[in-house]
């Protein structure tokens, strides 16, 4: 037996149009806590899905060896049988079922086809003791807070005789106390011989708990640091995460910055599920005409929530703050009012929120500005075809005809359709949420050119992106957001990846 419980060698994984993992190697020693760091989109989650069998053997390249044996998982059940359990960022619990029922879901404590409730609840109680959760096993999970639900997930993993526990951003939604408890629990499990892989953005936590740290970037392993042997600092990790030189090509752009277009003042948004939790906390932003402004933040920082709440209160509750458009205060209570005030929002998830995939290109382009093509409620379809053809040419949408269904297009072309849809409404302010997510390099360049063109036409553009080089290459000014607060505003000249990352990883405690 080697010192490693898990080795993943040369892992590659492609999606249509995107190479998510190019060449990842990961070696995890017996009984250690191994942290995986990387920017959003570096390939961490994809890697964990390959490991746990969500992406079955054959759909990726490379080799996985667990406990000295080659693994060819066909699904999650295969990996769980070997003792590999993954706890996703979005918890997979049934809120109406009790703690005990959730723990033994799919693994019911039954004899002769009938569930033995005494055994179920008793064993659940033992597991809850082990994870330090003082709740009755019959409590519905929905009545517990996120931190406690996290512990239920871990109890569930322990019930499966876990040997390798994978946690994806386990503390992202937790407060300081819950986070500390969770880290203590992981140390306890390490003492019991359970190996953990933890994917996290919070570098201070990683420093506190990890034995080894593997840094991923652009779908490749950059380095693996041994915390005991190497001198590991947060700066060293950040350098590894962002270390790519700006070899990405960005179209040259000379900004012509004009008057203030939109001012967001004291913007506070509360979570619809946790009304006491401010997802966005007293944020202030200014967008000017002709300027491309970036919004940087790690996952869970509240970027999309900020954008969607501004866009006609499409997210959140108890929203407070002011919007000032062209010097005049405006009320934006619905998407229609946002559109009427010249605000456009291009979503980060175009398939779910941006496109009607079973409809063709021209009808998607006309979806928002349809009334411009209509007289007395009747659409001029020839006009619609012509407009769509014009966008197809000017945005270089690669389709046989504008009658092609959008569901069949590549990510880059889908994104051009969504952009066309919003440009057709002739907005003054465009909020672009992850405009190049899931798009190949060539199409990214085209999207950047389009964004530059929009700014040159005098529109104010806010770009939300997880890719720091993208923000550095594209934006004239960058705000950073951490835990719902604006933690920095950096001009193009001053901006470096390290500087932004430091602002973005500021925890609340460090930022009173």
């Amino acid at each position, binding site marked *: 037996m080697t010192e490693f419980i898990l080795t993943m060698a040369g892992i590659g994984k492609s999606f249509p149009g995107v190479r998510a993992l190019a060449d990842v190697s990961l070696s995890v020693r017996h009984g250690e806590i191994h942290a995986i760091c990387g920017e959003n989109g570096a390939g961490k989650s994809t890697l964990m899905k390959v490991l746990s069998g969500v992406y079955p053997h054959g759909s990726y390249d490379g080799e996985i060896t667990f406990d000295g044996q080659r693994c060819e998982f066909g699904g999650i059940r295969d990996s769980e049988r070997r003792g590999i359990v993954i706890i996703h960022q979005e918890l997979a619990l049934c809120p109406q079922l009790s703690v005990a029922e959730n723990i033994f879901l799919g693994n019911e404590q039954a004899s002769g086809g009938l569930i033995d409730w005494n055994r179920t609840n008793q064993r659940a109680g033992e597991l809850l003791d082990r994870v330090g959760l003082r709740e009755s096993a019959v409590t519905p999970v929905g009545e517990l807070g996120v931190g406690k639900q996290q512990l239920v997930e871990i109890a569930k993993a322990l019930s499966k005789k876990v040997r390798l526990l994978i946690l994806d951003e386990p503390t992202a939604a937790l407060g300081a106390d819950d986070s500390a408890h969770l880290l203590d629990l992981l140390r306890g499990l390490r003492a019991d011989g359970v190996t953990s892989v933890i994917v996290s953005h919070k570098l201070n936590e990683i420093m506190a708990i990890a034995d080894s740290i593997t840094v991923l970037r652009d779908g490749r392993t950059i380095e693996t640091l041994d915390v005991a042997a190497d001198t590991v600092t947060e700066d060293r990790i950040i350098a590894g995460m962002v270390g790519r030189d700006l070899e990405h090509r960005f179209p040259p752009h000379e900004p012509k910055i004009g008057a203030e277009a939109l001012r967001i003042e004291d913007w506070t948004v509360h979570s619809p599920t946790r009304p006491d939790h401010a997802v966005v906390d007293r944020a202030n932003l200014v967008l000017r005409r002709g300027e491309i402004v970036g919004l940087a933040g790690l996952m869970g920082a509240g970027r999309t929530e900020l954008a969607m709440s501004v866009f006609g209160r*499409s997210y959140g509750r108890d929203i407070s703050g002011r919007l000032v458009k062209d010097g005049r205060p405006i009320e934006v209570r619905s998407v229609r009012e946002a559109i009427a005030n010249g605000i456009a929002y291009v979503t980060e998830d175009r398939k*779910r*929120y941006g496109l009607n995939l079973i409809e063709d290109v021209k009808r998607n382009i006309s*979806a928002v500005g349809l009334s411009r093509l209509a007289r007395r409620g*009747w659409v001029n*379809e*020839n006009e619609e075809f*012509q407009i769509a053809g*014009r966008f197809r040419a000017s945005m270089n949408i690669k389709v046989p*005809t504008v009658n092609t269904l959008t569901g069949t297009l590549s990510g880059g072309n889908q994104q051009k359709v969504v952009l066309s849809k919003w440009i057709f409404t002739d907005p003054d302010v465009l909020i672009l949420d992850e405009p190049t997510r899931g798009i190949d390099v060539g199409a990214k360049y085209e999207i950047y050119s389009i964004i530059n063109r929009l700014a040159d036409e005098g529109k104010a553009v806010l770009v939300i992106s997880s890719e720091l080089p993208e923000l550095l290459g594209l934006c004239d000014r960058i705000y950073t957001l951490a835990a719902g607060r604006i933690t920095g505003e950096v001009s193009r000249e001053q901006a470096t990846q390290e500087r932004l990352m430091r602002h973005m990883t500021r925890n609340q405690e460090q930022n009173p």
Partner: protein
Amino acid sequence: MSGTASPATEQISGTLPRPREPRRFSFNPRQSGIYVAFALIVVLFSVLTGGTMLQPENISNIIVQNSYVLILAIGMILIIIAGHIDLSAGSVVAVTGAVSAVLMVNLDIPWLPALLITLVVGGLIGAWQGYWVAYFGIPAFIVTLAGMLVFRALTLTVLGNQGIGPFPDPIRTLSNGFTDGYLGNIGLGPLGGADLVSLLVGVLVVAGIAVSQWRARRGRLQYLQAVDPLPVFLLKTGGAGVVVLAVVVQLARFKNIPWVLVLLAALVLFYSALTTRAVFGRRIYAIGGNLQAATLSGVKVKSVVFWIFVNMGVLSALAGVIFAGRLNQAGPTAGTSFELDAIAAAFIGGAAVQGGVGKVVGAITGGLIMAVINNGMSLIGAPSEQVMLVKGLVLLAAVAYDIWTKRRGAAAR
């Protein structure tokens, strides 16, 4: 029309893609399968019934006997495209039929105001259900299941256990009657005498189809859109003309054109245009295709859903009056299971269970497929349980075919 459109065309023609080579005849099995199936079923039953199927009287019967389900199918397809369902249509048919009977028979209100009041009542019923679905957020399945019980109960309350009739003549004419032979008959050689007015109407309709198709084609060409090659266009338009003319000739040989056919034709034309060309219709597809995307595109989702239920209520009331007029009395069991026929028509006609897909003409064709199966099987003397069995299997097969072609299409990508 060239005067207004051409400057715009010239202005941007530089950036437009070159007109594509007109495509060879292309066959989309998912969209065209339903029409082919309909033709095959008609041929099958024509052979099985030794030609009785296509006799003048029988064609007339198929139209008159199924008009109310076809009217319901038009309203139903809009609701299904939006991703909802209406289980209450049959009960609404019954209660509105009862309302119209009370107004016209018991209260002696003239037929036209009484008809309009009934349609308003139908609209209010639709508004009631639309409110719960759109604004309160209860799934349409539940709201209309409740409506199915509630409106049947109201029917029984209004009618007690007996029917109300007879209806005034104009209503009976609308449901059961035929256009008059204003110009007398004309000899058609071996086919015998036929009504001249009906034939003229038929010729006008065919001419109308030809002209509108030709103008649409011209418009598309002007905007450099791909169109069918000329022979295929002529074949399609000519084929449609021949079918329409053949049906009209047969009707003219019997008792002329049924008034419900005139009504139905007007409804199909209007709602086809509404779904394909109106902003409101486009919103329905947007909602059914991707609710979140529609919401984030500023579509007033609640309002649209509310109004399609109001629309369904009005069409149900229309069907209710026609059904009552046809039987010449409003009965407590009227409209039982009509909603299921209308839903089946929509799905056989190519609507998708998830919403976002469907056509008015498809739903009408789906309804006609079931009508022909009903009619043909009863002509050859099949018992009603066999008819039910076949209709059930046809529904299953139609949706299975739809899912199969969709899956194959996805795999081919």
